[in-house]
């Protein structure tokens, strides 16, 4: 692990600032040359999102588009892109972070370019990611924090005012919120030998209470539903840079399955980014077969659940046997079970019996 992690972070920051400035210069010079400014970027339309079996994630295909100020339909998003770039550059320069929601609100009062809603500003930020080939976290733009991490990992902060300061992630018994500070920190030291990712907050809290981190020698990560990109990035780093196996534990229904899959293979929305997927991660439950084997209390699958399961079955990310097998089981029994279903056998059953058995299996 690096000696002076905040220097590395500083270098990253400067590189981001430079690329933003280059974008500014490009546009500026196009106008000076009496040319309507334009920016070339990879197309993000669905027909240009391709599943790469080798990388085991979605990537953008070869098609490119030009955002062109000469085009009456492009000029507003183009202007928003320039404004957002400037806003991002200010963030980077001032070493501040912001959220997607804040970006949306910051444009308020910018007459004529303010966003009509957050989806519009989110979209422009994604454009900027594609155009500069950098994740928005580099620009200091983060999602709302809701995901958390707990366990024996010492991090060293790089955020202003905390540079060089260290913290162990067992220091706070509620877990530590995965925000810009954790995301941009360096991982200095750890004794764990695996990462356990849990979909739900209640189960995360139960695992901490039952000292699961000690019993399984694991880092616990709570995704709070579909994991934010910063959380996926942390999982990716722990797996790739620190060789920690990752086990994902979700509700036993199509939505839980897909939470696991996005951690493993990424999402179509982030096809332009690398470093978010963790193809080595394993989904350990709740499986359809678990529902049968453990006689879990269940609910019936709804119409919507069944429809979603059928979609997943044809999704290229679900080609491997285990997914196909479990999807078939769910379809067959037409039942689903939540993580909490194990409470039927007592509050500690999941830690005492189920998890050890599952981890043993894999």
């Amino acid at each position, binding site marked *: 692990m690096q000696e002076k992690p905040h220097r590395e972070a500083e270098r990253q920051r400067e590189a981001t600032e430079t690329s933003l*400035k280059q974008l500014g210069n490009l546009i500026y010079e196009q106008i000076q040359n009496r040319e309507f400014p334009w920016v070339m970027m990879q197309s993000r339309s669905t027909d240009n999102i391709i599943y790469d079996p080798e990388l085991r994630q979605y990537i953008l295909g070869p098609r490119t588009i030009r955002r062109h100020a000469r085009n*009456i339909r492009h*000029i*507003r998003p183009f202007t928003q892109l320039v404004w957002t770039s400037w806003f991002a550059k200010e963030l980077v320069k001032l070493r501040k972070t912001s959220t997607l929601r804040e970006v949306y609100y910051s444009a308020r009062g910018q007459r004529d370019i303010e966003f009509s809603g957050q989806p519009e500003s989110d979209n422009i930020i994604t454009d900027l990611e594609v155009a500069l080939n950098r994740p928005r976290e580099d620009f200091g733009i983060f999602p709302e924090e809701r995901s958390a991490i707990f366990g024996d990992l010492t991090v060293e902060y790089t955020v202003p005012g905390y540079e060089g300061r260290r913290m162990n992630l067992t220091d706070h018994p509620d877990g530590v919120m995965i925000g810009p500070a954790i995301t941009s920190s360096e991982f200095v030291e750890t004794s764990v030998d695996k990462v356990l990712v849990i979909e739900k907050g209640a189960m995360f809290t139960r695992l901490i209470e039952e000292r699961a981190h000690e019993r399984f020698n694991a880092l616990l990560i709570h995704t709070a539903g579909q994991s934010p990109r910063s959380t996926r990035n942390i999982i990716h780093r722990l797996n790739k840079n620190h060789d920690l196996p990752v086990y994902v534990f979700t509700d036993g229904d199509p939505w839980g399955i897909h939470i696991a899959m996005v951690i493993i293979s990424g999402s179509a929305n982030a096809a332009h980014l690398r470093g978010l997927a963790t193809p080595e991660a394993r989904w350990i439950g709740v499986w359809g077969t678990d529902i049968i084997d453990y006689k879990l209390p269940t609910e019936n699958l709804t119409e919507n659940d069944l429809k979603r399961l059928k979609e997943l079955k044809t999704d290229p990310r679900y080609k491997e046997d285990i997914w196909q097998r479990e999807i078939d089981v769910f379809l067959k029994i037409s039942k689903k079970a939540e993580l909490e279903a194990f409470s039927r056998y007592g509050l500690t059953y999941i830690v005492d019996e189920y998890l050890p058995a599952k981890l043993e299996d894999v």
Partner: protein
Amino acid sequence: MRVEDNGTGLPPEHIPLCFGQVFYGSKYTLKQARGTFGLGGTITILYGQITTHKPVTIASSTGGEIHEYELMIDIARNRPLILKHNVIENKKSWRGTAVELQLEGDFSRIKSRLLDYLKQTAMVNPYADITFVDPGGRLYKFERGTEKMPPLPQPVKPHPHGIDVENFRRLVSITEAKTMKAFMMEHFQGVGQKTAEKFLKKAKVGLKTKPNSLVPEDIVRLVRTAREFNDFQRPDPSCLSPIGEELMETGVRKELDLQEGDFLKVVTRKPATYLGFPFIVEAAVATGPSIRKQFKGGGNIIRFANRIPLLFDESSGVVWKVVNRNINWSTYKVSSDTPIVIVVHVCSTKIPYKTVGKEYMADQPEVEREITNAIRTAARSLRVYISRGIRIARERRRLGIFEKYLPKIAEFSTKLADREEPPEIEPLINAVSARLPEVEEKIKEVPTIAGETT
């Protein structure tokens, strides 16, 4: 009230009867005229007399001496009572007629209708100078916009389809024809020897029957048979006096205060007939910035019958029905908030009034069809105008978008590049605005559509 014109003047011997007898005048020939029974003027005098018991003064000259009468109406006997008759030397060679009378009325209540009436009268009589001084002494002028006049209507004999029993009886009583065949040929248009013979045979009246020997049953049968008889020639339209596209355009443009850039299209239809009466429909459609200033959105209807403005019961009339039911305005790109003015003039020897008060015209199918066609023809030009307007508005909006965003792009790219001076955006704006003058030029051509032959 004093009304004066500079018209032909009246022969002095006719003056007492013209103004002092209800239903004076007997017409055995037909032509387009403002009135039908000679009722309007006399009724006004009568109304003045019964509300104020004051005499009316009439002065008129056909070029020579001025004859001035002061008279009242003997209501019981329907005769004029001449109180004074002065013959005055005409030093200034005045020609025309002046009538002065007193009557009771509520001017403030009727003021706006009255001004509408005058304005609309000026619209379809663009060769007339109209001056009005109201009771408060305020002067209104509606000046002429041209010295041209439409051709005068020619008197024609009635068409057999359009005759009623009463008129037939009157013709029988004055005729000098000795036989019914001669009678039919002499007093009706479009009846030759053969037609007369064929018709009388069908009506079961002998060719040589003496007209004065007809009994009332014969007359009723003749009139009924005439309606169903299809071998008469079409009614002769020379008795009509349409305003004509050129004069109507002058009048409408003048009274609606149309400017360059406004739209006006006038259509005069060919003569048509209903129930033996010839008629001609003329229509004008106007829109544009000047109309928007004066009128609310939607169709604003102005109606005329034989050049008389129809001011009442608009929504009962045939024009309202055509505008609001028969015509789908969206076909012509007219949206509900586009203010347009629709002027319709129907001239005929018999206007198909629905009521005796002559407030509005009925939806006589032939008349309704002609009105619909006239407005549709005008509306087709309107569609071209509106499309061009939409195009120029779109061009302007396009330019507006570039003018809005390019400065922002310049501003933030300057900040993003850490530079001081923003780049020049004028060349880019000039490039996108290059097309606008071309489109604007096209829109100027549009008003010349008015008057184009269709």
